[in-house]
């Protein structure tokens, strides 16, 4: 066994949104609220995924739908949310994504994970604007816990300054605008215009439009119970098991993350990135317990 910390996900959604004059987590860019969209974007990569909230936001209708990490130092900005997560699950590394980054794509997240260096405090993108670390789309390792706590304790709230002064791995963005954020109503209008110009406005990699295929999904054990059925035939636009599980997890509220599952296509173990074909039978395999 290795000592690399498992990745947990954290959607930062506790901001005051003062400049936007409305709650940024509820803005819609992709036909869904940004908090839901960001959560679904990162959940397939994480063992467990949470949203970061202030104590007074816990019960609001949209945030209460998600597992939450509550800020311990309200008013200290996103670093307080990250710090709370690092304290709550000290053995996890945290894939942190702010909910006001509508241009993030799945490849943005995947590259971050592939290039992760668990020996550093964090792995982050280098801003295409100023070359400095982007702390709000980054992986924070367990070793960041004490650094973040001390930073906050000394009255400093800026996660970017923390990363500048730490042993952080910086990598280049796959697309220069992927981390442009949206803070004002004008920026929101511009962002929506930009997204509508994309051939595909969802978070997946740009590719040929996939028409839907008919797939048979069989369920066993805990997934069978949670789905309330042992199989179903569905029409799906999912290109691979990663996308299919994200769709089914949403529909059936599966508790297991993809990191805990294996996948079989047509009764053989398969890769999560295998292209799905019309008529395939897919099984997601929960942790086994024979013997």
């Amino acid at each position, binding site marked *: 066994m290795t000592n690399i910390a498992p990745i947990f996900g954290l959607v930062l959604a506790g901001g005051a949104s003062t400049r936007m004059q409305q709650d940024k987590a509820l803005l819609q860019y992709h036909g869904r609220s940004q908090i839901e969209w960001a959560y679904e974007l990162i959940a397939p990569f994480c063992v467990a995924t949470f949203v970061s909230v202030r104590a007074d936001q816990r019960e609001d209708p949209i945030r209460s739908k998600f597992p939450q990490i509550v800020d311990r130092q309200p008013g200290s900005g996103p670093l307080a949310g990250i710090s709370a997560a690092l304290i709550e699950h000290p053995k996890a590394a945290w894939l942190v994504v702010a909910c006001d980054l509508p241009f993030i794509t799945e490849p943005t997240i995947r590259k971050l994970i592939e290039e992760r260096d668990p020996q550093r405090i964090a792995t982050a993108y280098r801003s295409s604007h100023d070359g400095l670390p982007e702390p709000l789309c980054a992986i924070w390792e367990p070793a960041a816990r004490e650094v973040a706590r001390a930073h906050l304790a000394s009255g400093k709230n800026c996660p970017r300054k923390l990363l500048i002064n730490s042993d952080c791995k910086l990598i280049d963005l796959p697309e220069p605008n992927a981390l442009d954020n949206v803070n004002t109503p004008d920026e929101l209008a511009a962002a929506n215009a930009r997204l509508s110009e994309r051939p595909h406005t969802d978070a997946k990699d740009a590719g040929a439009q996939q028409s839907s295929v008919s797939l048979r999904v069989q369920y066993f054990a*805990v997934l069978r119970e949670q789905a309330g059925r042992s199989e179903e035939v569905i029409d799906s636009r999912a290109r691979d098991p990663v996308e299919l599980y994200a769709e089914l997890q949403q529909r059936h509220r599966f508790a297991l993350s993809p990191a*805990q599952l294996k996948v079989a296509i047509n009764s053989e173990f398969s890769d999560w990135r295998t292209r799905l074909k019309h008529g395939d039978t897919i099984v997601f395999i*929960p*942790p*086994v317990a024979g013997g």
Partner: protein
Amino acid sequence: MKPFAFSHAPLQPETYRTALADPTAGAYAAFEGWVRNHNEGLAVTRLEYEGFEALALKEGERIVKEAIERFGVVNAACVHRLGSLEIGDLAVWVGVSSRHRAEAFAACRYIIDEVKHRVPIWKKEHYVNGDSGWVNCERCAQHAHTHAHEGTGNRG
């Protein structure tokens, strides 16, 4: 007999043992997994096993063939129970016949270890307090995560 099989009825180790007999074999080792009345501090009343049979049969057969090749034994087989089991029931049987005892023990150990980690079989425990749970799936995400990464490890 088939290298790997499921049974919905009680297992018959005496029958399987006979099927592994061979004039070149001077040793036979078997392993039996029984249903016990506790797990991780909880009192267990009964179990249910569920299998993804189409894939489990293939993976189980691969494991038995690996063991025969790796340890050079004469014959080997594994039978796993499915359905509802009571305390003391036989859940899984592994048998190996070989020329000498050392490789029989080793192959037997290899087969049960690999079956537990690789074959898509799930166990639901029913507890004295009325609760139930799928082992490795419901108690702790961290535990299950670790387990998932052990799936194809090279032990033995």
